[in-house]
């Protein structure tokens, strides 16, 4: 950052919103991928759209790289600072500008917390569907950048499927709008929303977002099934799918994850090798009939125990163990890496066996939590960062799991994004030509490659690996990971 750039920043921001001292920058050095850290050149805290646009234009003019940051909950290092670059903190743009229950839409600023939208919509019987486990703290801007998912993606999709309109500033300072208040979104012409959402901050910053809201289901029916074999839980998922039911969520946890959750939130889970949670939702008459069928299937699937949530409190407790599983695993081990690979659902069993073999090969523990409905695995690789070479070993194991997912016909990431963490694995999934085309696309939008430089694409300078435990907010129990 040169002096002219800095002077220009000072003309936009008062000193309390332009952070440069080490002690002020410290909280911004990492996101939820805590193995990485980097010191930004400065952090700015805009309070309105104009300040964001001015800042991006300034960065473009001076070729200073920037990263937009919401609450810093990215699990792929997506909001990790660029060394000596600018971090643009968006939390202060947190207004819900419009909520129209009749048309089921909300217009929000990028710093609005995911859960706040559902809270605002709740009095009207509506909610915002994407529910990453960090939803009580993560922001919509970050959800947009990484196309965040959650436990309920199979039926209603990820963030991209819930955005109808956007106003964005591209990395070169151009401001543009696309989409509408129609559920069709863009409707006519290429779906620019689909392109922008999930671009990991490489195209620019979302300034204003129109999201669609959904009616709250009349009832939820949630069942917890315990198995003495992980494979059998996987088979149960296939049976549910084959039956023609379309559950809102299907989640599996293995023994280690169950034990961790039990020790941490005391969900009252049975002692089992695997737990399957299936949740149906919808009109009561329909769901009650579906639920009878579901219980029949689960009984046939060899579950040794079946628990039906009889009240909202019991449902919450079942989910609490699942949603808190990641931070719970943090109690078992000083450090861990979360993976996010996807495999075709029918190959889940194969993937789990292979992960077990890798555990033995590397001598590391792996806890498994996954969105079984869409084949999205979240293996948590446990290691002790204080031991020499432990992180490298854990990363090597993580790399083998990603290769496994690709070999089985899946993806290296279902919902966390490539970010910093998996950028070296992008070539395993896409050809050189495909990556060249994506790079060309990026440069056509951001000729100076300043927006979130160093993420998604392989190569570039990696910030120093740092060994530390949970995110401070996770330690405090404020957030949890999906």
């Amino acid at each position, binding site marked *: 950052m040169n002096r002219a750039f800095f002077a220009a920043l000072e003309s936009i921001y008062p000193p309390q919103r332009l952070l440069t001292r080490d002690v002020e920058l410290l909280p911004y050095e990492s996101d939820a991928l805590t193995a990485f850290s980097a010191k930004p050149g400065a952090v700015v805290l805009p309070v309105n759209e104009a300040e964001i646009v001015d800042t991006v234009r300034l960065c473009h003019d001076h070729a200073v790289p920037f990263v937009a940051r919401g609450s810093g909950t990215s699990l792929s290092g997506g909001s990790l600072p660029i060394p000596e670059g600018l971090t643009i903190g968006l939390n202060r743009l947190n207004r819900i500008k419009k909520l*129209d*229950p*009749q*048309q*089921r*839409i909300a217009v929000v600023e990028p710093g609005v917390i995911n859960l706040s939208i559902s809270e605002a919509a709740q009095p009207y019987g*509506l909610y915002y569907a994407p529910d990453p486990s960090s939803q009580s703290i993560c922001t919509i801007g970050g959800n947009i950048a990484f*196309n965040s998912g959650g436990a309920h993606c*199979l039926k209603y999709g*990820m963030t*991209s*499927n819930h955005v109808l309109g956007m106003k*964005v500033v*591209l990395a070169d300072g151009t401001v*543009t709008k696309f989409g*509408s208040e*129609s*559920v*069709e*979104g*863009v*409707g*006519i*012409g*290429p*779906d*620019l929303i*689909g392109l922008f959402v*999930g671009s990991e901050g490489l195209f620019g910053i979302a300034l204003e977002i129109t999201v669609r809201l959904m*009616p*709250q289901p*009349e009832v939820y029916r949630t069942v917890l099934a315990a198995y003495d074999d992980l494979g059998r839980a996987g088979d149960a998922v296939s049976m549910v*799918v084959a039956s*023609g039911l379309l559950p809102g969520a299907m989640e599996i946890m293995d023994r280690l994850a169950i034990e961790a959750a039990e020790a941490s939130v005391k969900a009252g889970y049975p002692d089992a090798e695997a737990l399957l949670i299936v949740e149906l939702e*919808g009109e009561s*008459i*329909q769901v009650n*009939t579906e639920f009878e069928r579901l219980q029949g299937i689960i009984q046939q699937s060899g579950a040794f125990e079946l628990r039906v949530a009889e009240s909202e409190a019991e449902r919450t407790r079942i989910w609490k163990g699942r949603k808190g599983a990641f931070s719970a695993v943090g109690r078992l081990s000083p450090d861990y890496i979360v993976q996010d690979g*996807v*495999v*075709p*659902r*029918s190959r889940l069993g194969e993937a789990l066996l292979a992960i077990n073999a890798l555990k033995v090969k590397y001598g590391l523990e792996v806890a498994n939590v996954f*969105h079984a409905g*869409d*084949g999205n695995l979240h293996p948590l690789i446990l290691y002790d960062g204080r031991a020499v070479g432990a992180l490298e070993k854990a990363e090597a194991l993580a790399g083998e799991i990603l290769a496994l997912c690709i070999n089985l016909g899946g*993806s290296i*990431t279902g*919902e966390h994004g490539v970010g910093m963490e*998996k950028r070296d694995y*992008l070539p395993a*999934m896409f*050809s050189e030509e*495909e990556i060249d*085309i*994506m790079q*060309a*696309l990026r440069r056509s*939008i951001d000729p100076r490659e300043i927006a979130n430089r160093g993420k*998604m694409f392989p190569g570039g300078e990696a910030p120093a690996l740092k060994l530390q435990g949970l995110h401070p907010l996770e330690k405090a129990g404020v957030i949890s990971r999906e």
Partner: protein
Amino acid sequence: MSVNAPRSVTELQAIVRDNERVHVVGNGSKTALHNAHDGAASAELSGMTGIIEYQPSEYTVTLRAGTPVRDLAAALSQQGQYLPCDPLMGASATIGGTVACNLAGSRRYRYGGVRDFILGAEVVDGLGRAFRVGGKVVKNAAGFDLSKFLVGSLGRYAIMTELTFKVFPDAPSFRSLRLDYGPLEEALRAVYFINQSAFELDALDLIPGARGWSLLARLAGYDETLPQRVERFSSAMARETAPLDIEELADSGSLWNPLADLAGGCLVKVALSPKQIPAFEAALAGARRRYSVGGNVAWVATDEVDALDAALQKLALTGLCLRGAVKSAVIGEPIDNVLAQRVKQVLDPYNKFM
């Protein structure tokens, strides 16, 4: 204009490389898109058909872009599944044309549109490069999602040769109702009531009649629960929205084809929000029309497309002409966007696809 019917991706790449202008055609069912392309070599994908991979247990299907939508629907239906964006079943419409034009039928109401169910694609771009975008599994966040960008792209950026979709189990049974209201405002109030209720309709359309406006509502589910659900829905609607009449109709495919009564004239799709309907109605001057997807898509048949164009411009809405002799398929508010132009520079820098 030279006509080419490639049988393979390699042949298609050669056509793109060897010609200055290329105009892609599926089966040509959307006639308005094929006017005014003199001088361009046409690439007809009707020979590139067939389902490549369909795994009902994965909820995914991969097929060649020239496959008729009807064939896909038939294959899915054999396994009790469907493509929830409900591609419109024109006599010969292809899946590639459906994506390029972003066309979804009334059942799009329940789970979403084309953009919500496309997972990935193989394409040939304006430089003749063949490559893959997106993925083949139901969830994937790696790389830029150019597959969604193709939805609505009108063949101007890249030619799709293969497409992968997410599919869902279909319901075994359906029941349909017509609810009659007086003025438009009353029918819209009923739509708003449904929007904030927990009733899960399979489809909801809004149609003008001689004496007022009607809602067409469809419920999907099991035989044994549908009567009770229909009863519950009807009584709630009677209580909360005061319809003049509620009548159960014989459920059928043609009842839920929004284009069934719109034969003749220029056929136009308009994406709008329910609250824009009154102003749109005032500007329409009596063209035949039906509002689909809970009032979020207007289908209009008119002989006076210039008047419609002017009305759309006034309201800052865009229309896509599917049928009729028009100079440009896109009418009303232009769709040019700087972000789309940037993509164009990369995928089709020499404007082969115009």
